[in-house]
């Protein structure tokens, strides 16, 4: 098993980040082009805790290394199952995901958390990400290691691009929101 983890801070409030997070993979994000579809499968609010639980299906098209394709067959389209929890009381978003495709040879479990940063909780948000990648294919440890290494490498590239893309989404969201507010207040005045 290999573990990939990273943290970073976004200079936006938790409310802005948790809202923009729903459209992380929109055309404003031109970095995460490997994500081609995001579908919501179920959604409910727990009456006792107020926690919003959402199940989503994320569809990606990856440029998979040729040797991986030759080894496992299959196509470059892959699916991820994600369950996310928004807790408005503690201001925490937790997103857990697992791969649906190639799950017989590779297990990728990821947990992402967004919460107000400790240093500036009202206007900045801490992002933390941890992925556990395990090759399940029987046989040579050498091959397993190679599969895990290639997966971690791809994961870390996508994570970096994901951050850059999400910054763009946050900026656009703030701009659109303030334009909307201006529009609304002009309408009220006229």
């Amino acid at each position, binding site marked *: 098993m290999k573990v990939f983890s990273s943290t970073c801070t976004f200079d936006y409030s938790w409310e802005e980040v948790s809202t923009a997070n729903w459209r992380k993979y929109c055309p404003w994000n031109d970095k995460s082009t490997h994500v081609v579809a995001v579908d919501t499968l179920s959604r409910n609010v727990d009456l006792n805790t107020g926690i919003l639980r959402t199940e989503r299906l994320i569809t990606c098209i990856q440029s998979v290394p040729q040797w991986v394709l030759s080894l496992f067959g299959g196509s470059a389209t892959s699916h991820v199952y994600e369950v996310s929890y928004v807790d*408005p009381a503690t201001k925490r978003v937790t997103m857990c995901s697992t791969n649906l495709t190639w799950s017989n040879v590779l297990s990728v479990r990821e947990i992402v958390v967004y919460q107000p940063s400790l240093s500036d909780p009202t206007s900045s948000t801490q992002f933390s990400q941890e992925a556990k990648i395990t090759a399940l294919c029987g046989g040579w440890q050498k091959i397993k290691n190679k599969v895990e290494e290639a997966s971690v490498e791809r994961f870390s590239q996508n994570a970096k691009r994901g951050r850059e893309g999400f910054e763009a989404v946050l900026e656009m969201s703030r701009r659109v929101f303030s334009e909307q507010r201006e529009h609304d207040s002009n309408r009220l005045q006229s």
Partner: protein
Amino acid sequence: MAASIAPECNDIKEKYDTCFLKWYSEKYLRGNTTSNDCEELFTKYKTCLNVVLKEKGIDSMLEDARKSTTKEFDAETLRRG
């Protein structure tokens, strides 16, 4: 907003996503967690989507993933919460 895996569901998905985002930012985050503004759109979107998930065999992959992860994922949130 991101596209749907099923192009024929894009229109209804777009409507639902827009409704949800408005509800999330204007109601849910402001403490009104029980209102149910987008349920009708979601039902239509799911009806469209489920046909395609079945056709592509993704529904059974999802069932397996649910079985093997739900407890672990739910516990993760409780632990952190």
